[in-house]
């Protein structure tokens, strides 16, 4: 029995080593921060087109940086591996969760847009939208953390989830919209955690010089 557990643990350790580089944390933290930048761009007086253009440009930059870091920092140090069938099934489940999340996100965006135009039915959107956001983030990050066996996603999901509800609470209490700064602050916290992991990874996994 213990032998079985050890083999399972061996596979798990190998799988988790791919999250040791902290790059997912940095990436997700930057995405959260970008939401704050998007809000600041909206307030900056720039035209909607320019604001959207800058946001998309930054988003592409973050995605490219993530891809390049994985390609040129992680893989030369940790190598390539193909995991067994169970991990592949879990990856497919994660992709499905993400797909459902994107659909929910789009619906929320459309409703938000309708609310701004005054075209939505008379329901308390100010309470409902943050609740839907928080629930979506908790469920998505929770399931992703479970399927990917990546525990830090629970913490990241929690920070994603509380941002908008916290903004609404602070707004009702103070009359000030802290939204962008909350996104930036929580994003920065996640990025810092990722950088700590990245530095530890760089120390623990030097570049392999020889070739097979």
């Amino acid at each position, binding site marked *: 029995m213990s*032998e079985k557990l050890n*083999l*399972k643990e*061996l*596979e798990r*350790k*190998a799988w988790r*080593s791919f999250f040791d580089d902290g790059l997912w944390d940095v990436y997700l933290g930057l995405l959260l921060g970008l939401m704050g930048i998007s809000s600041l761009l909206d307030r900056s007086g720039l035209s909607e087109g320019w604001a959207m253009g800058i946001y998309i440009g930054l988003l592409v930059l973050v995605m490219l940086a993530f891809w390049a870091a994985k*390609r040129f920092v992680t*893989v*030369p*140090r*940790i*190598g*390539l*591996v*193909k*995991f*067994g069938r169970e991990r592949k099934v879990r990856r497919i489940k994660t992709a499905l969760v993400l797909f459902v999340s994107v659909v929910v996100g789009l619906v929320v965006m459309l409703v938000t847009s309708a609310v701004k135009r005054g075209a939505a039915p008379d329901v308390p959107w100010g309470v409902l939208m943050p609740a839907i956001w928080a629930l979506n983030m908790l469920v998505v990050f929770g399931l992703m953390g479970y399927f990917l066996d990546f525990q830090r996603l629970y913490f990241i999901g929690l920070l994603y989830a509380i941002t908008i509800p916290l903004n609404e609470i602070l707004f009702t209490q103070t009359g000030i919209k802290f939204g962008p700064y909350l996104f930036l602050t929580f994003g920065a916290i996640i990025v810092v955690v990722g950088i700590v992991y990245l530095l530890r990874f760089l120390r623990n*996994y030097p570049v*392999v*010089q*020889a*070739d*097979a």
Partner: protein
Amino acid sequence: MTIPPPSPLDEVDRLIHEPARLKIIALLYVLESADFTFLMSQTGMTWGNLSSHMTKLEESGYLGVEKTFKGKRPNTMLKLTDKGRQAFQTYRKQMTQFFDDVPE
């Protein structure tokens, strides 16, 4: 002089029984395939050490080599063959049986 009965340990596959190779085989057993760098990072072995064990395992038919490309660079992925998987399972059974038979 009486000859002692054969022990399960007498039949153990010594190619697998060596600690470093056991580490490599156990790792490849739980994976589909992995490259040299990954095996080094997981086992903590040096390139030369890993390479010599790999050669022995490949010669015995326990290890298969799969040539792929990492971008434009050729990359060698290593995996256990059916023979290697079978040998590891047999080894597990023998060792489990041996330790089960050891009195407390």
